[in-house]
Structures are given as structure tokens and as C-alpha cells.
């Protein structure tokens, strides 16, 4: 569905009188205090299938070194000089850029569809956004769902730019404005790293050292540390690339991992947050007064 192609029923519903809102009563009241008038509950959906990419490393019988889809790649080579089908002579960490692209496409499509609905309502912004990503029946199909409350700024001219958006609502949003920051948009990024463990990683993740218990001390598992660190770094770098000169506030970094065989993993990092822009210099606050409640 093209982003400018709202269903007819949605257009009809949005053009009718009563507003709807996902805000709780206290958040609703806080919005009115800020001069934000809720005009409608807006949503965006996208079901996204994640494709496969022939990286060469789909089975252990094929060395993956020849293939790369761009992004982070790190190779590991066995130094033991052993030749055996059971000995993992090669290892590789690589960024699954096609996984990241599919995820970002799903996120961006549902986001722009939600904004389109807000635009139809003449809203200046969308507050209290909740976004969920659900794995559908097929493990490679993700459903992206975004919901928020479109608001108009009272006594402001009709919007000439796309609506701003934020995960915040209520008092937290009010404090953001008071602190001199204006929400620009919600923002997210993902990184996906596949690990094919080489022999050393396999042994260490499997508890190597049993036989040499008295002579082999703990060792850092470099391949895993590198993969996990890169997953976080790439997620943060991708967000930074979207930020421009704006800032990210209230960030939330979620980490996921799936083990396929001993030492073989996929690591994902998803970073979400509020892209904000400073619209006035920060007025220093007095040091807050500490209180103790007597009950």
C-alpha cells in the first residue's frame, strides 16, 4: 500500500465529528494543559517478510569468506592445523544487512502510514506512540503496528510540515517542552549479527578446559564479545545517522539472541527513542528540594 493511499473507510471515519484517543485520563488532561487538543487515534500497520540472502555460509560445508552483503564482517581462522570435517577451521561474524533493511522498511512503512492518518486530521503532532513488532506464524514474517494520538496545537496556524511524533505523553511531554526540547519524531534502528563460530569459540562456549582444568584459566571469548559489541555499536551508529544535529532522548536498547548450534548465534540490537531538537536555551533549574513523605 502506498503511503498516500488511505483506505476509504479510514478517510470517512477520520472526517467525522467525534475524536478518539489512546491517552489515559491524566495524560489527556496534561495534553489540554499544554494546549494540545487530541483529534484522533491514528495507526499504521505493515506485515513484512524477511528474505534470505545467499551469503555462502548457509552450511558448514561452504566457506563464507567469499560473500558479503556490506557492513561489518570479521573472519576467524583456526590455528591448530587440523583437517577434519568435525573441526571448525573457519569462523565468521557478519552483519545481516538484509534483515536490518526488512525491519527498517516495516517500521518506516507503519510509521509513515500512522503519520498519514494524522495528516488527514490536520494534526501538528502525534503523542504517546506505542509501537509493537510481533512475529507472525511464519518466523520470517513480522507485523509492525504503530498507534498514537494525533493532536493539534491550539491557536497555531495549520501545519505546513509533516506531523512531529513522540513516545512521550502527559507530564513527561510537558517537562520536555519546559526543558526547551521539542519532539521531532520517534526513531528506531536495528542491527543483526550472525556468528559462525570457529573451533576456539566453539570449544570455549562449550566449556573447554575440562581436561586442562588445573592449567587453563578462564579466557575471554573474543568472537562473541566482538559480535555483541558490534551489534550495539551498529544500532547506535544507525540511529546517529538518522539524527542529524538532533538528539536522542529516552532511548531503549533491547538485545536478543538465538543459538543455532554450539557457538553459532544471531544477535540483534533494537534501539528506540525520541528524536528531539532544542528550541531555546536551557534555563538552569534550582536544585530540586528533597522531600520525605510521612505516612
Amino acid at each position, binding site marked *: 500500500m502506498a503511503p498516500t493511499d488511505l483506505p476509504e473507510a479510514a478517510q470517512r471515519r477520520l472526517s467525522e465529528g467525534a475524536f478518539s484517543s489512546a491517552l489515559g485520563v491524566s495524560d489527556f488532561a496534561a495534553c489540554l494543559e499544554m494546549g494540545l487538543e487530541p483529534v484522533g487515534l491514528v495507526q499504521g500497520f505493515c506485515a513484512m517478510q524477511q528474505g534470505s540472502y545467499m551469503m555462502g555460509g548457509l552450511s558448514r560445508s561452504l566457506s563464507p569468506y567469499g560473500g558479503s552483503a556490506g557492513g561489518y564482517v570479521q573472519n576467524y581462522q583456526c590455528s591448530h592445523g587440523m583437517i577434519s570435517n568435525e573441526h571448525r577451521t573457519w569462523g565468521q561474524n557478519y552483519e545481516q544487512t538484509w534483515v536490518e533493511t526488512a525491519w527498517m522498511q516495516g517500521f518506516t512503512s507503519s510509521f509513515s502510514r500512522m503519520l498519514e492518518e494524522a495528516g488527514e486530521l490536520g494534526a501538528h503532532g502525534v503523542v504517546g506512540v506505542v509501537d509493537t513488532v510481533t512475529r507472525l506464524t511464519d518466523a520470517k514474517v513480522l507485523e509492525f503496528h504503530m498507534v498514537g494520538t494525533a493532536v493539534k496545537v491550539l491557536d497555531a496556524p495549520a501545519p505546513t510540515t509533516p506531523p512531529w511524533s513522540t513516545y512521550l505523553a502527559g507530564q513527561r511531554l510537558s517537562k520536555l*517542552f519546559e526543558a526547551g526540547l521539542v519532539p521531532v519524531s520517534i526513531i528506531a534502528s536495528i542491527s543483526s549479527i550472525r556468528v559462525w563460530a570457529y573451533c576456539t569459540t566453539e570449544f570455549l562456549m562449550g566449556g573447554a578446559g575440562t581436561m586442562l582444568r588445573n592449567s587453563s584459566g578462564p579466557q575471554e571469548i573474543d568472537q562473541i564479545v566482538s559480535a555483541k559489541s558490534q551489534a550495539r555499536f551498529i544500532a547506535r551508529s544507525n540511529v546517529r545517522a538518522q539524527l542529524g544535529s538532533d*538528539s536522542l532522548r529516552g532511548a531503549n536498547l533491547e538485545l536478543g539472541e538465538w543459538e543455532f548450534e554450539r557457538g553459532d548465534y544471531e544477535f540483534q540490537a533494537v534501539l528506540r527513542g525520541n528524536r528531539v531538537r532544542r528550541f531555546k536555551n536551557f534555563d538552569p533549574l534550582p536544585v530540586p528540594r528533597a522531600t520525605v513523605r510521612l505516612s
Partner: protein
Amino acid sequence: MSGLEATSSSLDVKAEVRRANAFLAEKPPTTGAGTSDLSIDEELNLHSIGWEPVELVSGLSVFSTPAGLWNWGQGEIVMAGEAHQRAFVSASQRLHNEAAKVGAHGVVGVHVERQVYSTHIEISLLGTAVRPVGAKPVDASGVFVSDLSARDFTLLMVAGWQPLGLASGASFVYAPRRNVGTALQQKSQNVELTNYTEAMYSARETAMERMQRDAIALKGDGVVEVKLVEGPMRFAGHAVGFAVWGTVVRLTKESHHSVAPLKVVSLNDTDVAFDTAALA
């Protein structure tokens, strides 16, 4: 101000929102990016003492432990304690390096995640690098790492204390098996299993001592907000573990400055909820 007067903001929030909304139509500024996982309340707390968030930073380490380590033996499982300690130090060092690289003076609100598996131990740290507003970078050795929230960091600084870094300690100890005769004899008795009790005490003392050693190495006066995790591991029925970590602090003024909290009493009645179960 007497301290009993209500304070209220004189700011016209509606006007501020209109101003902010209009600002978005203007050309975006060219400077001033940063990332942070602090809440807006935490950021305001930081600003009240003249500090600002700079960047989201992380550090991670995974150390191997021999698989057959956990079930048979006596005394401390030295390699497991060593793996935990080295993983914690490596992760802290990486977090510290990232913070120094972005010109921060410290890291606050560090989330400490630890996973102890039979074959490896993982320590993962994530926090927000901070500095006094507009301050120049300091020497990397002066950058602190703390798991205190931004609110607690603010209170600590106001009270004249300073965080210096994270201290940690861990110890894993075998709980020796009872001999067959004793086990059978005690099978139906109420009896303390002193092997587990003693193992826990032993692990506790060693872990606490290690954390204290870290604190002394950082020239701290003490450790605040100590977290502790203790108990058996799912994969090791005859071993117990004890891990502690916290923020090392030092008094920077001549004496502790009392924050003299204002005592408040809520005049609201306790809500009386209608209990449907009472009708049964």
C-alpha cells in the same frame, strides 16, 4: 521562602508549545547531537546541578569457564570467581573507554546485566555518559562509572560526595556432598544442611572482600547501593554463588552536606476499595 509555600512554575506552557511547534518549521540547527537513555526527569535532575547527557555507551565481556568445574570439588571454585571478576573488569574498562572517547566525565545509570552459565560468564554494562554542561574532556583516568541513577547521582553530588567507579566481587563455592550414611540418617529429619550454610558464608566473605579491595584501590570511602545476587545455580546442585557490585564514593567536601529533606504529609484518605470477595 518558608519551605511550606507551594512552588509553581511561572512558565506559560501553552506558549512554549506553540513556540516549539513553530520552531520545527525553521531550518534545523547544525550542532548539538547526543544520545541518552535517561528519562526527562533524570535529565532535569542532571541539569539542576549543571550536568548534561552526552552519549549512550556500553561495555561487554564474556569469559569461558571449564564445563566440569561446578559439581565436584571442595572449597572455592576459583576459576569461576576469576572469570566473573575479569569479565566485570573488562566490561567496565570498555565502558570507561567509550565514555572517555566522547569527552564525558563519567557514566551514570549503568544497567548491569550478568549471566552465569556452566560454560561461560557474561557481563554487560549500558549507561549514559555525562559531563558538566559544555565542559572540556578530562584525562581518561578521571572518568567515573556508576550504576547510580541520575537522580541519585544528583543527590550524592549535592551532599558533597563523588562517585569514583564500580566495584565488584564474586565467589562460587562447593557445598560438599554428605556421605551416604549421613544423608540417609538425615533424610526424614528437620536438620540444617551446614554444608550449604557454610558454603554461602564462605562465598559471601570472599565476594565482599573482593569488592572492598576494588573500593580501596579506587581510593574510595565506601560503596553505596550495593546489589547482591546469591544462591545456587540451576546447572550446579552442589555449588553456591555470591556476587556483589556497587558504586564507590568519596567525600569531596570537608563534611557531608545535609540535604535536609522537607517532610510532607499527604492529606488524602487511603482509598477504600470495594471488595467483591467479601460478598462470597
